[in-house]
């Protein structure tokens, strides 16, 4: 910006100097030159000083949050809620809109934000938290590197629990290991925590579970539990909570990411029999800490990223936002961009032996 001011000044001076006239005209021109010089100096003063202390302003601009899912899903609802409260924490009070780019579990949206979107701080991406796992197992079609995004942060974590029907006599993990007959656990399909979490529990902790996969949505799984077709399910605490409160199911154990209500439940990683098992479970669980990630395109100017991070953090502390989020079933916990990047790197630098075993279980879908 300083450069363009410089160039402008030089051009202006050249133009002024080129007024080569004589006589009375010369006097007038001289006066004009002096006035111009003063004005210019004053202008420079005004412009340059704030250039150093200037906060990037979004005034008059429109910020777009690109969501990798169709309207109505969890990521979309979180993005829309953030979009509602973000403007008042960004200098210049810009308009914030949400655009949906569903497809391939948000790979399409991530490709777009990474490669096509402009790096002017006016585009934010909201994607699937498991993209980093997809990158780890080298899913085809990903044209981005999660570590190169300008990370803003995550507004909430995803808590995964295993819940069993209340009228069954099982209450602890040990009960589930000894369960006979095998418990039918419903799942939507590989790649979702409904499937992956019990899969690892069965493989490493030897819980006697049979996973029935293919239900169209997690609500259908819930209905099947009511019908006694299924004995339990895994899934996010926030979506199972109403059914726990109603007494339909009982939570037995949880994964790493937690909220106060379920903090006392046994954690899968703690019960892992070997270091490798623990590492594999950790790989699955770690992205859940950055449950609702928001990123900016790589190469976005650092001062803009900083402004966005601050704004996001202040949104997550806004009282009205918290109330609305609670009503919508979100547990808000801000994870800052640096932390999120660190976690992403942690996943991507997992030892190859662990990754190999992980790949046997995990399928990005």
């Amino acid at each position, binding site marked *: 910006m300083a450069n363009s001011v410089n160039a402008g000044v030089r051009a202006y001076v050249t133009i002024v100097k080129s007024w080569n006239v004589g006589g009375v005209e010369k006097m007038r021109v001289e006066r004009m030159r002096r006035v111009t010089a003063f004005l210019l100096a004053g202008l420079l003063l005004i412009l340059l000083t704030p250039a150093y202390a200037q906060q990037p302003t979004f005034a008059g601009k429109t910020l777009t949050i690109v969501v990798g899912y*169709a309207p*109505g899903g969890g990521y979309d609802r979180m993005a829309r809620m953030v979009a509602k409260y973000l403007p008042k924490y960004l200098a210049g009070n810009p308009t914030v809109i949400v655009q949906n780019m*569903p497809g*391939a579990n948000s790979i399409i949206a991530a490709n777009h934000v990474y490669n096509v979107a402009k790096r002017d701080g006016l585009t934010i991406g909201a994607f699937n938290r498991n993209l980093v796992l997809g990158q780890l197992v080298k899913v085809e079609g990903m044209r981005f590197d999660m570590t190169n995004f300008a990370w803003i942060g995550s507004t909430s974590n995803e808590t995964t629990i295993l819940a069993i029907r209340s009228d069954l006599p099982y209450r602890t993990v040990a009960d589930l290991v000894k369960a006979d007959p095998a418990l039918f656990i419903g799942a939507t399909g590989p790649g979702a925590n409904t499937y992956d979490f019990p899969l690892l529990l069965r493989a490493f902790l030897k819980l006697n579970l049979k996973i029935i996969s*293919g*239900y169209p949505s997690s609500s*259908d799984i819930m209905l099947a539990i009511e019908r006694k077709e299924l004995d339990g399910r895994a899934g996010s605490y926030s979506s199972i909570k109403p059914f726990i409160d*109603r007494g339909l199911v009982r939570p037995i154990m949880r994964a790493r990411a937690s909220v106060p209500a379920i903090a006392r439940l046994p954690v899968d990683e703690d019960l892992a029999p070997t270091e490798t098992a623990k590492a594999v479970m950790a790989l699955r669980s770690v992205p859940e800490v950055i449950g609702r990630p928001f990123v900016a395109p790589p190469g976005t100017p650092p001062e803009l990223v900083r402004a966005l991070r601050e704004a996001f953090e202040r949104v997550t502390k806004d009282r009205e936002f918290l109330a609305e989020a609670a*009503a*919508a079933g979100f547990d808000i916990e801000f994870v800052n961009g640096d932390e999120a990047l660190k976690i992403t790197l942690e996943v991507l630098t997992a030892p190859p032996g662990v990754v190999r075993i992980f790949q046997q279980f995990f399928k990005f879908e």
Partner: protein
Amino acid sequence: MLEALLQGLVAVLQWNALSFMLIGVVVGFWVGLLPGLGGATTLALLLPFVYNMAPVQAFAFLLGMHSVTATTGDITSILFGIPGEGTTAASILDGHAMAKKGEAGRALGASLMSSLIGALVGALALALAIPVVRPLVLTFGSPELFMVAILGIASIASLSGRGPRGMVRGFLAGCLGLFFSAVGSDPQAANLRYTFGTLYLWEGLGLVPVLVGFFAIPEIVDLAVRGTSIAGKASVGRISGVLEGVKDVFRHFWLTIRCSLVGTWIGVLPGLGGAVAQWMAYAHAVQSAKDATDRERFGKGDVRGVIGPGAANNSKEGGDLIPTVAFGVPGSSSMAILLGGFFLVGLVPGPDMLTKHLSVTFSMVWTIILANIITVAASFAFLNRLAGLTAIRASLLIPFLLLLVFLGAYTNNNNIGDLVVMLSFGMLGYFMVRYRWPRAPLVLGLVLGDIAERYLWISTARYGTSWLGRPAVLILIFLTVLAAASPFIQERRSRRKEALRAA
């Protein structure tokens, strides 16, 4: 319970709830009309606004919007052959055919009236089912849902043409549809099938671009060939046409009721999706034809082909709400979004809604009823002008139809791939029409294939083979056989009639 019923009505008639319902109705009117603006998506967009509202207001707004999309979606289907919503494509077959005969007014009248009755039946079902809803929904497990999908697939037989060649083509189209539903990642192991290396096809073929291309493109091509207006040489019927349509609904009153019940029932069954109800109702209307000659009139402008889907896609709304309200399990993707609304206003769907908050549940019933009455009444006022659109010459209309088609397909995923799918199915649809292959079975196969595959696997994984012996399954097998046999029964009846006439 009567008290809650009246309380619900009073709550809805309060000025603030009523005004939100009216806003919702206006929004829903246009959402249904325009292809590409889906009811589900609009619900998602409106949801954040509901946060600070009282429950009755919130549902007046949301349901006021959503329950009328099926009513007005039929309008675009009938007038232009472009499905206004994913749930209104079945109305194109006979509705648009009627428009081409100059009977657009009659078709619109029949569609609106049947929509109203469907909505009433659905709302009534919601109100009445409340005591029995829990055992009702709990009876239908995964094996039963699989059989329902098979029942739907067997209905393909009725939608096929007449004679052995017709049957071959019908089932061919059906198999194609079933096959197309396999595109994407498979539900059990998440392996990608037939995606040609693209990311776009990961989640399978989107229903909206397929329907829009499959039905609209052949109609537009034919319109360009004809070169006249949609109504062609026939003069567009005026108000008498509309009243005629309304009378038709009452002439076929029991058909209307039966198709409404079909729609409600499909809505009650969770996991079947929104597009199924209209096609099952259409198949049922066809099956109710007296004999094969009578059956032939379908697809060429028989008003029964408009009444059936028109009633079903509205009654589905009430049916969808039943598992949503009673169990917190959405009956369709729109209901999944509506569930979010429950939580935003502080309600928890489940037994509470049938006891403590019964009046809120009944206010939903009244919202559906009132919103549809208002919409139908308002539409009747415009119907003549709407029907008049079919008199505009093709050359003016075609660019706008194509505009709607392209935009309508694109908004599915906001991806150019939507346009490719739309055009591909447009070509396929054109050739199928040209070579006299029926299109309805393909759509039926497409919407039912995914459900059939999922529930077959779940049933087998959970029950082994013992699920075949469950009582509800046996009843459904019987119904399936009936559905598959119906064209043959109709054929026999018409042969007997001809023999009698010859004698």
